[in-house]
C-alpha cells in the first residue's frame, strides 16, 4: 500500500481535534463584541482613523510639542513686545537730558581737582559760565605746557593758542619782520609776563 494511502486511511480514522462545544457561543459573543467596538465598514466615518491608537498618540505628542514650544516662545516675544518700547523712551530720554549737566559737573570737578580751583568761587548754576571758565583753564594749561616744549612745537602751539584766543597773528613787527625776530620778541614778552606774575 502506498504511504499516502496509508496515511490518509489513518487520518480518516483520527479526525482533528475540535474546539470545545461550550466555547462556541462565547466565541461568537467575543467576536461580535470586538466587531461592534470597531467601526462598521459601511458606516466608517472620515474620522475613523482617529481611533487608531498610533495615530492618536502621534497627534497627542505633536500637540504637546507645539504647546511646549508655544509656551516657551510666546512669553519671551510678549516681553519683547511689551517691554522693548519702554526702555527706548524711559532710558534714552533721561540719559539725553541728564548727560550734559552731569558730564559738565564731572569735568569741572576733574579739572578743579587737577588745577586746584575752588569750585565755590564759580558762579552757581550757570553752565555757560562754567564752560567758558573750563575753556579758559584749558587754554592756560596749554600755554604753560608750551614753554616746556621745543621751539618748533612751541611755535605751533603758540599759533594754535593765538587762534584759540582769536588774536591776530603779528605779521609785521618793529624789526625786519622776519620769523626769528618775531619769535624772539614773543619770547621776551613771555618772560616779562612770567616775571611780573
Amino acid at each position, binding site marked *: *500500500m502506498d*504511504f*499516502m494511502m*496509508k*496515511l*490518509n*486511511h*489513518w*487520518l480518516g*480514522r*483520527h*479526525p*482533528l*481535534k*475540535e*474546539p470545545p462545544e461550550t*466555547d*462556541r457561543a462565547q*466565541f*461568537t459573543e*467575543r*467576536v*461580535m463584541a*470586538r*466587531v*461592534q467596538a*470597531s*467601526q*462598521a*465598514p*459601511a*458606516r466608517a466615518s472620515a474620522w475613523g482613523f482617529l481611533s487608531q491608537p498610533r495615530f492618536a498618540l502621534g497627534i497627542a505628542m505633536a500637540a504637546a510639542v507645539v504647546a511646549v514650544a508655544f509656551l516657551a516662545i510666546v512669553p519671551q516675544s510678549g516681553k519683547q513686545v511689551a517691554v522693548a518700547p519702554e526702555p527706548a523712551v524711559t532710558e534714552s530720554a533721561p540719559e539725553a537730558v541728564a548727560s550734559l549737566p552731569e558730564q559738565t559737573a564731572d569735568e569741572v570737578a576733574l579739572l578743579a581737582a587737577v588745577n586746584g580751583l575752588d569750585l565755590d568761587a564759580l558762579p552757581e548754576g550757570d553752565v555757560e559760565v562754567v564752560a567758558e571758565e573750563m575753556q579758559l583753564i584749558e587754554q592756560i594749561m596749554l600755554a604753560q605746557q608750551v614753554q616746556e616744549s621745543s621751539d618748533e612745537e612751541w611755535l605751533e602751539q603758540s599759533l594754535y593758542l593765538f587762534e584759540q584766543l582769536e588774536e591776530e597773528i603779528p605779521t609785521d613787527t618793529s624789526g625786519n619782520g622776519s620769523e626769528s625776530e618775531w619769535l624772539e620778541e614773543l619770547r621776551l614778552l613771555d618772560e616779562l609776563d612770567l616775571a611780573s606774575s
Partner: protein
Amino acid sequence: MRIRAVNIEVGALVLQRAGLPAWSAGQGSAPAVDVILPVMDEDAAAIQGVLGGDIERYAELVDRYQAQTIRLAFSLIGNMEDAQDVAQDAFVSAYKSLKSFRGRAKFSTWLHRIVVNKCKDAYRRRAHAVEDPLVRVGSSHAVDEDAPGLFVDAVDESAGPDRRAADRELAAKISGAIGTLPEQQRTAFVLHHLHGRPLQDVAGIMGCRLGTVKAHVFRATERLREALDASLIEEIS
C-alpha cells in the same frame, strides 16, 4: 452553488462586485422579471445585510464558520487556545475588510486565506519568542500533554493498553512531523489532506498557482515519508 430564484438585489450586488453588469446573468439582455440569477447563498445575504448596516448579521457568518476556522488554525499552529485567538482575530479582520470582499471566491475561501495569514504571523511571533528550538509550533510539544497531537484519540476502548499507547505515540509523531514541515508545505498539506480542500481551493487560499500547490503537497509528503520510519509505516498499514 445552489440555483434558486433569489433576491435580485443580492444577485446584483455580487455581480457588481465581480465587475459585471447586473443583467449579465441573463443572456446578454436586460433582466426580465423571471430571470434566475446565480444564487447568492446565505453568506452573500448576510454580507449584504452587514454592509447595509445590520452588524448583528455577521454573527451568522461567525456561527457558520467558527468550527472549521478554529480547526484550521489549530492544525497550523498546534495549540487550541492560540487557534481560538487567531480565529477570533481573523473574523474581526474579515469584518473590517468586508467592503473589499469582491465575491469572486467563496466567503469561506477568503476567510481561510485570512486565517492562514494570521497563523503565519502567530507562527513567526512564537518562533521568535520560544527559547527552546525543539518546541515547534504544530509539534507534539505544543499541544496538550493529556492528548498530545492534532488528532483525536480514536482507538477503541476495548483495545489493550499497549495498542492505545502505540496509537498515541503514532499520533504524536505524525503531528510532530507535520509541525516540522516548512511553512508553505505544511499549509498546503494541512489544507488538502487534513481539511479535504481541493487543490484549486488551496491555491486560492494560499494565493499561489495550482502547480505550486501541487509541488508543496508532493514535497511535504516526501518529507513525512522520510520522517515517519518504516516501523511506523508498517503500523499505519
